[in-house]
């Protein structure tokens, strides 16, 4: 027994020493092939507290089917993820499989496998075509659509009824309803508008695109355009006329949605996982889910797809990666994963399996009208951070035009 303890101690020290070395970024390549077996390094972000466990289940199942392949899992928070991957790449220690948002920068640096080289034909053909298009750089698919989400307007029915307000479909109706709810007093806000750094780009898309604008395409990021101006100006109007919570410019999305769940916000844009959050934290909340109001009332939603991508590294793990992706995207493995996190599937077989889910219905309904971030543009990452840092200034003295100009300048400089 004592011997085992000592062995455990030695292993712990070795492990600590190895992780210490890799952590400094100059540790060379960890996860080298040992004997016949191959080791896949997997770097993923944490979507929820359950993410690590969900991946552990997938990996256990995969390793059972493929005893000669080991999978190393590393879970990071979204806040750290992008600096971790940048440090790893700089240190020549990129993971084999990475789950993240923007991938075009990696594709441009020629670090990624084209998806068709690391999936079987059946797996590749099973993706929703719109999602595949969204994952292409110059006609080649580099990202495997992983999970999707769409946005919709969460409405606190009790507050709207108390204020005598209608569920809005256009901006003018939204302004009117939100003002009525705000007038209830007691710290109640009509519309929850999170322009803080956490996810300002999402709220920006909801407004700028809802007014007929875009963020550009794979060739050019265009923020400072006449089409985007009405949305930015209406955001300012909402804030100035007291239709939103106080300090919209520096309010982050997650804490604000907590306040919606507590019943203090009339309307806020939410995601599929928001349904689960309300169910567990405040099941008594009287709420309903509606399409996002736009300038002219035409339906639209912001779709977001995160991607899996495979790094080439030494180019000797293609088969193992293919085996992993084919296993992961089989409906029996993939659908429970997506469901556990409360997102929407990106595969045809997955959608079929989930067609009967009532909670997801409002989102699946708006999904055909989804517009995506121009994430295949290598400059999108710069635009993303420019929105996070600057869009909240709409709550302040700067004019809508100045804010858009400043964002465009930072993108062009990036």
């Amino acid at each position, binding site marked *: 027994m004592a011997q085992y303890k000592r062995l455990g101690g030695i292993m712990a020290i070795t492990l600590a020493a190895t992780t210490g070395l890799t952590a400094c970024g100059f540790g060379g390549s960890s996860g080298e092939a040992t004997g016949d077996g191959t080791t896949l390094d997997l770097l993923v972000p944490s979507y929820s507290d359950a993410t690590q466990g969900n991946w552990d289940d997938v990996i256990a199942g995969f390793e059972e089917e493929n005893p000669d392949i080991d999978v190393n899992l590393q879970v990071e928070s979204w*806040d750290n993820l*992008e*600096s971790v*991957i*940048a*440090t*790893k*790449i*700089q240190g020549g220690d990129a993971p084999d499989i990475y789950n993240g948002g923007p991938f075009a*920068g*990696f594709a*441009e*640096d020629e*670090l990624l496998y084209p998806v068709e080289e690391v999936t079987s034909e059946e797996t590749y053909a099973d993706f929703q075509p719109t999602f595949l298009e969204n994952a292409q750089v110059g006609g080649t698919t580099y990202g495997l659509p992983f999970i999707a989400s769409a946005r919709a307007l969460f409405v606190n029915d009790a507050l709207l009824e108390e204020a005598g307000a209608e569920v809005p479909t256009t901006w003018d109706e939204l302004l009117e309803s939100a003002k009525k709810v705000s007038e209830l*007093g*007691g*710290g109640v806000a009509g519309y929850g508008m999170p*322009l*803080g*750094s*956490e996810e*300002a780009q999402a709220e920006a898309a909801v407004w700028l695109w809802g007014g007929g604008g875009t963020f550009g395409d794979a060739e050019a990021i265009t923020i400072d355009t006449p089409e985007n101006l009405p949305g930015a100006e209406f955001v300012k109007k909402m804030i100035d006329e007291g239709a939103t*919570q*106080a*300090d919209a*410019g*520096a*309010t*982050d999305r997650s*804490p604000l949605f907590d*306040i919606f769940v*507590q019943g*203090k916000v009339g309307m806020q844009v939410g995601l599929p996982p928001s349904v689960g959050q309300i169910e567990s934290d405040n099941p008594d909340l009287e709420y309903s889910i509606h399409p996002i109001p736009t300038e002219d009332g035409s339906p639209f939603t912001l779709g977001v797809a995160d991607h899996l991508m495979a790094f080439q590294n030494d180019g000797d793990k293609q088969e193992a990666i293919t085996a992993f992706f084919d296993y992961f995207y089989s409906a029996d493995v993939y659908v429970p994963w997506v469901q556990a996190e409360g997102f929407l599937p990106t595969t045809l077989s997955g959608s079929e399996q989930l067609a009967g889910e009532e909670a997801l219905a409002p989102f699946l309904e708006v999904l055909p009208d989804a517009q995506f971030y121009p994430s295949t543009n*290598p400059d999108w*990452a*710069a635009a993303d*951070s420019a929105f*996070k*840092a*600057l*869009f*909240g*200034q709409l*709550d*302040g003295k700067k004019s809508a035009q100045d804010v858009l100009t400043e964002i465009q300048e*930072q993108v062009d*400089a*990036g």
Partner: protein
Amino acid sequence: MKDLLKALPWIGPAVALIAAVVLFPVGLMFWNSTRDISQSGVDDGGVGLANFATVIGFQYFWPILGRTVVWVVVVVGCTLIGSLALAALLNKAFPGRRLVRMAVIVPWASSVVMTTLVVHYGLEPYFGIINSFLVDVGLISTPEGYGWTRHPGTAFAWAMAVAVFVSLPFTTYTVLAGLQTVPGETVEAARIDGASGVRTYFSVVLPQLRGAISVAVLINIINVFNSLPILRVMTGSIPGYDADTVMTMIFKYMQNQRQIDLASALSVIAFLVVIAIVAVYVRVVRPLEEV
């Protein structure tokens, strides 16, 4: 030369350690600041001093530098005044002094991020305890409280308050140690000559604290200048660059914009600024010399 060779086995490991953990990272930082590094971390070649031009040409650079000076001066100044008062109190014998001395260490012993987060949550509208208190006593009229951490001015002021709070223990103890080296005879002589308590403190005790104070100030300047976590937590959700210091700006370049090259360039500037401040300070105050 022969002596040096003889000494090498003894000082060698220390020299190697300094080279590995101090000189190498500094060198790498200077190197990165002259490179063009892509967002995913690939080195795309040298660009000379272009990164420095970009950083200094940024329209908010000078306000940020000015704010950094305010940050350092106010925090170090308030810390010093507070510590002198606190140390004078702790130097007097009174019942329970040991407990009070222990209590002063608490902000030192707890994590800075933790301390800041506690204050940050207290300042949150809707549920923060500080906001609730201010609403209950009628100082704030809006029922959800005031967004202290959502306006650059108030967030920065609160960050300075937290910075003073966490800097106090170290400074207080340094001054306290200095106070205990002040010979009783000098104070007694002043009293016999009829000097008042205030006069004695400023003319007799304070000059003898010069060594302790100047070391404490030097260390505080470096610490406060390089402080990131407090500002990061208190001002992190504010859009724009109206509450940034050089350190938070480095962090924004690195974390938000992922421009490691620009972050390195600004780090080099910050490094040179600190070196300059310390050089001037050492030259003028001579903290390491005997009184």
